[in-house]
């Protein structure tokens, strides 16, 4: 640090306090014995216990994890194809529209994406009778669509940064272009695909708005369940759930951070 003025230190402390005090207060109150969420009634793990006995939470979590894993996998396949097409295939007909459509879901407000997809599903149902019921399949399609944009961007930037000489060498030695992709390009961009998958998985787990639009009566994801409860106010079991999520995310991120630092000292 060259000159860390007192001003910068103050702003940094304030900024980080602003970011973390709400999270810390949620964790703190999750150990509250009292069922009044904001009155301190002594330490207790009671709400964690109730959380694990709450079947609605477990069911919603199960659905969310299934949707997240499925849509992240589809998004990674489609996004990788799109990234390859944009960086390695040169010009092809309709490329401008394609690259426009790839990045647009990144910047589209969620309410618009959600409404437009719901109207599509309703229209399709009238025309061809599919989807008969909205739920797992419609949420998975919606999440795949916006998450593939993120994967495509991650894969694209990895491909642009990557040296093409290995692929060219293989090509010169008589390797067929399709095998070059599977034997050389894909293994090289595999880390980017993994981080794309993780990003897609997290985005899917996190999404409330789009899922609320395209879901049907039978399917409630975890964010939808949480939202239906917190609409009515602060509740201690949601504090416990939030604390668990904060814990899992923090540990996961810290581990990956440490792993990256170890590799690149």
């Amino acid at each position, binding site marked *: *640090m*060259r000159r*860390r003025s007192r*001003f*910068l230190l103050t*702003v*940094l402390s*304030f*900024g980080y306090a602003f*970011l*973390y*005090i*709400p*999270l810390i*207060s*949620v964790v703190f109150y999750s150990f509250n014995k009292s069922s009044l969420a*904001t*009155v301190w009634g002594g330490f207790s793990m009671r709400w964690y216990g109730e959380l694990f006995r709450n079947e609605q939470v477990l069911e919603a979590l199960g659905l969310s994890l299934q949707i997240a894993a499925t849509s992240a996998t589809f998004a990674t396949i*489609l996004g990788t194809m799109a990234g*390859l*097409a944009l960086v390695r*295939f040169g010009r092809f007909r309709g490329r401008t529209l394609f690259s426009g*459509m*790839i*990045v647009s879901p990144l*910047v589209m*407000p*969620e*309410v*618009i994406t959600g*409404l*437009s*997809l719901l*109207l599509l599903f309703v229209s399709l149902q*009238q025309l061809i009778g599919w989807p008969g019921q909205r739920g797992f399949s419609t949420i998975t399609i*919606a999440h795949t*669509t916006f998450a593939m944009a993120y994967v*495509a961007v991650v894969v694209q930037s990895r491909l*642009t940064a990557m040296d093409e000489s290995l692929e060219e060498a293989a090509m010169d030695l008589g390797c*067929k*272009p399709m095998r070059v*992709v599977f034997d050389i390009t894909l293994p090289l961009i595999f880390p980017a695909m993994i981080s794309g998958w993780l990003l897609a998985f*997290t985005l899917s787990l*996190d999404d*409330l708005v789009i899922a*609320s639009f395209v879901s049907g009566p039978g399917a409630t994801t975890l*964010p939808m369940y*949480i*939202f239906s409860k917190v*609409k009515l*106010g*602060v509740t201690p079991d949601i*504090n416990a759930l*939030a604390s668990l999520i*904060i814990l899992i*995310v*923090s540990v996961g*991120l810290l581990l990956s*951070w440490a792993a990256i*630092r170890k590799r690149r000292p």
Partner: protein
Amino acid sequence: MAGTKHTDQGWRRFAVAVPYVWLLVFFLLPFVIILKISLADPVIAQPPFTPLLDDQGNLSVSLDGFKFLLTDKLYAITYFKSVMLAASATMLCLLLGFPMAYGIARSDPMTRSILLLLIVLPFWISFLLRVYAWMGLLNNYGVINNMLMWFGAIDQPIQFMYTDFAMLIGMTYSYLPFMVLPLYATLERMDLDLVDAAQDLGATRTGAFWDITWPLAKPGVIAGCLLVFIPAMGEYVIPYLLGGGESLLIGRVLFDEFFVNRDWPLASSVAIVLLLILVVPIMLLQRYQARDAEDA
């Protein structure tokens, strides 16, 4: 050899066609449908809108939804308020995020890496839960009011919840990382010697900031502001949880118009007008991101 060539061409075509068709069906087509429904009239039926072509095959287009939006005062106020609130949150994020990004970029590598991790961490924790966390703080019997009363600063709890102030805080809080990260990216690339040189040559600190740092940081400022403003404009969770009944923002109005009033054409018109307001910011952001991808 001709056969090989053929399969390779086929593979390429396949790799382009699959995501292409997916996006055409699940991204572009939905917008065409929104546009179509926004031009219909609401009816009590399933689905609750008139078809574009009536029984005789005549085109029936109704601009009533858009007319209503333009003439109804409530909608004008809602759009205006959404723009103002999103713009205010963007300003607050910039005021707080710029010095934070600057401070991070000026730290030594180890501290920098930890500080960045701490910026990214909230982003991976559910958005909904981060907004929820503020409900516990801003409540009439929440942490902030309890503290203030305990210190004796106030006798009665202050009504924070269900106000515009609460929504502003919620938006600033939720979108601050979106501001800090692009700002950090440009500030980190900046050559610090330029600032030193300017100061050696007699520039004041503020002078050096406005003449050197600010112009160089501009791409990051623009990207950060757009990344905050665009999602804040369509925000649904924050007005619902922190905003209360009267403080309507356009994202929430759209949702209610669709699900509560079941007026699909009007909800579609609301979405189209929102999109029109955001077209310029969205195009700007896409252009910036394309340029940034080339630089990197």
